[in-house]
């Protein structure tokens, strides 16, 4: 099972078209391995992106450099996945 320890999901708010384009530039940088949960659509609509641990710092630095605001939507993806698995296992155990 793929491991997502340290992966974070950022909710980015592009204030205008210029900032939206900046975020789209990120999308094209394949080495960052970004996974857009909600694609950049238009200014004012939240953009959600899962950022692998090795890319977290550089993505945040990029956003801050361009004064693009963001919040951390999910601090650690793996912890939510573990929670989900535990929940399923508990129900399956009960079912058995």
């Amino acid at each position: 099972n793929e491991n997502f320890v340290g992966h974070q999901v950022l909710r980015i708010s592009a204030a205008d078209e210029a900032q939206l384009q900046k975020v789209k530039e990120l999308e094209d940088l394949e080495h960052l391995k970004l996974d857009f949960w909600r694609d950049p659509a238009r200014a004012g609509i939240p953009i959600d992106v899962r950022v692998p641990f090795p890319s977290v710092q550089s993505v945040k630095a990029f956003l801050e450099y361009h004064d693009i605001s963001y919040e951390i939507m999910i601090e650690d993806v793996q912890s939510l996945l573990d929670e989900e698995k535990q929940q399923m296992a508990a129900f399956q155990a009960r079912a058995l």
Partner: protein
Amino acid sequence: STDTFNYATYHTLDEIYEFMDLLVAEHPQLVSKIQIGNTFEGRPIHVLKFSTGGTNRPAIWIDTGIHSREWVTQASGIWFAKKITKDYRQDDTLRVILDNMDIFLEIVTNPDGFAYTHKTNRMWRKTRSRTPGSLCVGVDPNRNWDAGFGKAGASSNPCSETYHGKFANSEVEVKSIVDFVTKHGKIKAFISIHSYSQLLLYPYGYTSDPAPDKEELDQLAKSAVSALTSLHGTKFKYGSIIDTIYQASGSTIDWTYSQGIKYSFTFELRDTGLRGFLLPASQIIPTAEETWLALLKIMDHTSKHLY
């Protein structure tokens, strides 16, 4: 039995297929299971048919899980299936719908991707087909339909999450539905359910030209959304794909609409609280309940406005 089945937790592909068999066994006069094809990796693709009789009746199609990681949609599909069998005698609206129409429900529209989210990568969205010449796997099954295929609003890069595939209907999971819908010929409403971002969308996605039935679709979406919101207060937006989010080419409902299926809608179900696709299982039932109210509105309108 399906009465003791747990609707408030996520299930594996095997558990969902087992649920389908249970439901058919409990309601043989109402529910049957159809295999419309096999996936790239050879898994059966099953559709539940709900019918109170008659032959070649007009029908409604509902699918969930075309993007495999959107687990709340498959879980909602299971809940819808049970709801239909529970309510079809006592809910007047549903009874009238089923007196005149059949309902087809495909709960796991991307079985290979779904199995992969359980076994290997919970974030997997696409199919699991292989692209010659690329190390990357899978095609976005919601960019692979023959409607504006390959235009802006999809990627030609096999490594992208919105890769449209080598050609329209290249994905057997898509082609199986295309063949079924084409052969059936009397599908009057087609509803494809995704998550997340709380939207009810209608065509078009690949062009900003308004759909000929835009007015009616907009009014119906408005009434469906207000029914949905009335239950738990979940706020939804509605509109055409391109106006409400972005340009998306090769999408399911652009194709179904181009086939003359007027009532073509896509849902993006809830995430009301910063969890995205990892929606807690505790929200499965509230999500399914509110979505059901919107589905009933669309199905009721369809059955009263057959064309």
